[in-house]
């Protein structure tokens, strides 16, 4: 699953990278890949982006890491909890929205880290665009199929 998410975030990042402002084909804060930091338990976020820069001599390397709440993973795996519907809000559509939200931060940060300190109107619109794009990817379609198959299997049982 980690590989699929890493694949998905990088696919979206590469599609929108450098596409927003055609005059700036190579934004200053660009990264060549996004790192998926994995699923972590959180009490107040669905997803998190950590954007940082590191100086190597005169060169600045930008690192962009995305984390997702581990309950998305439990929901994908359909693990049960003692509380009914505890994981249900972490459904596939919220996962896709969260991924789009985090990737939008990473794309905008290519033009400056200060741009991502707040959720701007540009960020909101870009999240919508990326969400639409993700919905048509084979990765998301496969996840949808797996969820449907799981529902069918449960009915048979």
């Amino acid at each position, binding site marked *: 699953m980690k590989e699929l998410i890493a694949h998905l975030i990088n696919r979206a990042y590469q599609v929108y990278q450098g596409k927003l*402002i055609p005059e700036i084909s190579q934004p200053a804060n660009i990264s060549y890949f996004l790192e998926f930091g994995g699923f972590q338990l959180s009490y107040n976020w*669905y997803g*998190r982006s*950590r954007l940082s*820069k590191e100086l190597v001599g005169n060169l600045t390397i930008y690192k962009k890491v995305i984390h997702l709440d581990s309950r998305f993973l439990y929901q994908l795996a359909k693990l049960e909890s003692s509380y009914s519907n505890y994981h249900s809000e972490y459904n596939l559509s919220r996962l896709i*929205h969260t991924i789009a939200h985090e990737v939008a931060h990473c794309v905008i940060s290519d033009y*400056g880290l200060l741009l991502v300190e707040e959720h701007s109107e540009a960020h909101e*619109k*870009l999240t919508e*665009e990326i969400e639409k794009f993700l919905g048509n990817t084979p990765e998301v379609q496969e996840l949808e199929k797996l969820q449907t198959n799981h529902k069918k299997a449960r009915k048979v049982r």
Partner: protein
Amino acid sequence: MPRIDKKQLSEKQRLHQISQLIKKDLTNLKKSKREEPNTVEVICTPHDIFHSKRKRK
């Protein structure tokens, strides 16, 4: 001038709109003369999602 429905805009036009918004934000940031930090952390909370969905309706 008649208002253009958001749904009628092509992907290119929508991306152009986003581009203009980012340029505006960049101009404002230049004016503020703030130094770029070494690390920024942003989170996506339930509030962000519900708030943006409400605005979209």
